[in-house]
């Protein structure tokens, strides 16, 4: 039974997840076309989507590094980020996420247009759940959702 506000925010959020709420995915990419594509792919797969046009915006949205604002639970269930972005790269964003006590359990997916083995292993070693070559396809989204479901249970 969902308690209406008596419990802390984290409890009601977990309950909402169990009731089959749509997963909330944050998509970070400086390419408008790619943001639109990934958003459509995810929405067609019953995900709620928020987009950010660079890592800095993502950091602001996630309230990373600001302990007083971070809250107790993550509002996003997954973060998909492009690797090559001006300013902070996707790799640097990944590191920041892994340093956060609230967000480090959120699965992070890195996308890249370039198939560079050292880049891939670097990201996976830093804790990325998946590395996907762009452009994203429906089969990639299927794999993504599998990681999402795994992380929820």
């Amino acid at each position, binding site marked *: 039974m969902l308690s209406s506000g008596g419990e802390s925010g984290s409890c009601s959020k977990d309950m909402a997840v169990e009731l089959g709420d749509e997963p909330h995915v944050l998509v970070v990419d400086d390419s408008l076309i790619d943001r*639109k594509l990934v958003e459509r792919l995810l929405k067609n797969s019953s995900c709620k989507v928020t987009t950010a046009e660079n890592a800095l915006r993502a950091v602001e949205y996630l309230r990373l590094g600001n302990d007083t604002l971070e809250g107790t639970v993550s509002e996003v269930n997954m973060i998909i980020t492009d690797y090559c972005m001006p300013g902070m790269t996707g790799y640097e964003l990944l590191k920041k996420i892994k340093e956060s006590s609230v967000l480090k359990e959120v699965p992070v997916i890195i996308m890249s*247009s370039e198939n560079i083995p050292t880049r891939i292993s670097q990201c996976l070693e830093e804790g990325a759940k998946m590395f996907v070559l762009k452009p994203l396809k429906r*089969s990639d989204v299927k794999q993504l959702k599998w990681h999402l479901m795994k992380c929820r249970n």
Partner: protein
Amino acid sequence: MEVGQMQRRLVDYTKSLFMEGFLDAQFLQLQQLQDESNPDFVVEVVSLFFDDSEKLLNDLTMALDQPNVDFKKVDAHVHQLKGSSSSIGAQRVKNACIAFRSFCEEHNIDATLRCLQQVKQEYYLVKNKLETMLRLEQQIVAAGGSIPMIELGFWRTINMKGGKE
């Protein structure tokens, strides 16, 4: 022209774009993302691609026109264009960008200028083709018809895989 004839013309035209390599499997993915709740998805993405590409081609022209060419900047623009053309399935533009980048690496002015011309040519070609295709679709819809699907067998004969090699 009646709807059936228009539909056949569209199917033949679309098939030719794939056979001639203007479009690849990624464009198919785009079409599959379009449905009743998002009926204009392809047009929207293609329009974004046109706007983005034209800006990038202008930036590239200016960058290569400098007395001291900043190849890092040129490469960054080409990288972007390669990405967006890859995302919509504009295969020949993408391939022209790949060649372009290798000459950027070599800091070869003459070759990169030739590449720019090549990319522009491929871009304007595919732009023209896509606009024609979308216009044919519009005419069919305006006449009350639906956009025909291309039979699965076609994709098998031209051996189009799901996208990335």
